[in-house]
């Protein structure tokens, strides 16, 4: 078998993983609007599609996790590794990504978007702490 890491197919998997993950979120968002507008059957259809998109995204992840976490490049596998990857991505979001995005939004004259990014930087701070706790709790008491 060919090596997946570094292949065009690996790049392609990364691309469609993002697409399907987005589709799941977009469709469940659209479903809510359909429901508010009174189109309950359309909402059901969109929710069912969103469910399927999750399945597809997870399917892409089945392959991607053999190489690395698509968000951080860290190795994936058992829960401890996965928690470390999740912690890394939330910590980056808190310390780098969102603060930088907020600065740009302020500079371009979108103070509300900037505030939204700043709000998320703090949410990420909280998530990172929860992940840290989970990681410590796991290594301390739940060894299999």
């Amino acid at each position: 078998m060919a090596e997946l890491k570094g292949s065009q197919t690996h790049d392609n998997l990364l691309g469609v993983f993002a697409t399907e993950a987005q589709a799941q979120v977009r469709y469940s968002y659209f479903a809510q609007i359909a429901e508010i507008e009174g189109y309950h059957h359309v909402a059901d259809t969109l929710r069912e599609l969103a469910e399927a998109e999750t399945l597809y995204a997870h399917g892409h992840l089945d392959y991607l996790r053999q190489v690395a976490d698509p968000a951080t490049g860290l190795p994936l596998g058992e829960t401890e590794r996965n928690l470390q990857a999740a912690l890394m991505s939330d910590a980056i979001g808190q310390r780098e990504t969102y603060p930088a995005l907020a600065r740009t939004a302020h500079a371009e004259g979108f103070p509300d978007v900037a505030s939204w990014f700043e709000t998320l930087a703090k949410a990420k701070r909280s998530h990172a702490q929860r992940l840290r706790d989970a990681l410590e709790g796991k290594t301390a008491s739940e060894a299999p």
Partner: protein
Amino acid sequence: MSSDSYTAAQIEILAGLEAVRRRPAMYVGSTGPQGLHHLVFEVVENSIDESLAGHASHIHVVLHADGGCSVEDDGRGIPVDPVADDGRPACEVVMTTLHAGGKFRQGAYAFSGGLHGVGVSCVNALSSSTTLDIWRDGQHHRQAFARGSVTSEVVVVGPSDRTGTRVHFVPDTAIFGTTFDAALLSRRLEELAFLHPGVSLRLEDQRTGTDTTWCYASGIVGFVAHKNAERVALHREPIHLTDEHEGIVVEAALQWTTSYNEDLSSFVNSIHTPQGGSHAAGLQAALTHVINGYAEERRLLDRGAGEDITGYDIREGLTAVLSIRMPDPEFQGQTKSLLSSPEVADKVERVIAGGLRAFLEAETEVALRVVGKALEASRARLAARRASERAHYQVVDPKVSEEVYQEQFGIRSKNWHDSCTWLTHGDLLDLHGSRYDGPEDGVLLDVCCGSGVVGNSFRGRVGKIVGLDLTPQMIAKARTRLDEVHQGNVYDIPFPDNTFDAVCTREVLHLLPRPERPVGQVFRVLKPGGQFVVGQILPYGEDDAAWMFRIFKKKQPLFFNNPLPEDFFAMLEGAGFVDIQMAETHVWESIDLWIDTHETTSLHRHEIRRLYYDAPEEVRRIHPFEVSPDGKIRDCWRWCVFSARKPQ
């Protein structure tokens, strides 16, 4: 129909009861308040079925001091004769068997409410004790149950010349942790009284000694008028549409008001469907098509300017009750919150569209008012979008969007104190005024003073209270409270340096891009040693902040900042303030008033409700709010009042 035709032979047995106690939520929705009250509604709806069949006219609900509830009607009484198959009395079968009930056989009831007959047996299964009294065939019968099992056979208590049924049940405290809420039951019983003109519904709360009876002849037209009692109607009489189409009886009453909220209640066989469903979709489709068609034909729309009337615009300010009767409705979920029978939408749309079109043709004056209101809503929707867009430029030049704020708060000034309860909340105002510790003859400036209530909370503590606001309508209001009021912009406060002993403001900084600039202005106009008292609703923590951001941005397009207390401290320190302290208080408020303003679009109002309904667990852990079983939402705002001092 004589009482003889409702006999044991019509009762069919389908399944057993153990499952109900094992998974109560599957049958009554939840083991919280929703499920508990559902027990009462279930029994009441059986009595309503008797009234629909023409046999009952009085329904009497009693909340007993021991935590139990009884529901009594003057219908035919549940049959007590043996069921053909196993010889048990019919009433026992009804009480102990899932899916047993007269409504399962054609003939006894044409349309029926209850939970497909799972109803009263579910109530029995989830009650620590149930006593069933039946007056029928000249005798008073009684049978007792506990947790769904028979504890005594049917006995004859004595002769009686009346008919009827009483179910007295005590909900099992091992399953339900809450007690009955009389206000909630009242709302539903009143609703039923409107839906069933002539039926008398009585709620007696023996725990508090209150006793209320509802009986209305006016039906759903009266229901709409009743809902609109506190609102200003656009037309005097609700529009009443009723017709039958292919076996479905459709009745609707519609009345538009000057409010922004839509208030649509839909019912199927008198069951409330809080989430609507295909019948409500049919009504909405009819409204959209007919009103748009009317506006189009009379060339009332300026398509060139991007005007179009959406369903949201039409429903803004609409109070409507839709009631349909149909055989075998299909619902999503056992608690029937949503009608899913797909064929209903078209039929309802046809009936409503036909009736409404004819009405609008006949009543031109009402028609023009209704279409005018929808047009106004569509223009406001466009304006709200533009306000948000235009306000972005404020960063470049603060002067540019003064008009945006003037427009927004000018319109809202009309019902300012009615637009949310916290505006005039005494304890909250006092938390501002009582923070002051400057000289008794000091001069206070209330910036963005609105109606002046916050500045006025310093009355008696300072010598003079000055107001500053941008909006002429607000300035006029503030002049009734404050000593003098000036018009001006908070980015360029029109007073010299070192003028005031104190400055106050409340719930303003979140609306201002770059809030550090107005805070810097406040610092400038304060005397050395002067005090800044500023109140703001803030998130409880990191985990509800993103959720609150979405709610506030949907409520108010001019929402620009969502600080946590730490950010607020940092902003005040950054401006040079010292001795910064924070006090907080929590104020419960229904969100209904708060989102009933022109600045919140209809879609956003719906989305805000969904954000509460679907709030993530991490939000619920730190941010208290309540959703009552009928979908009403109360939030507990975290009010933070900061005090900061300009150094000496």
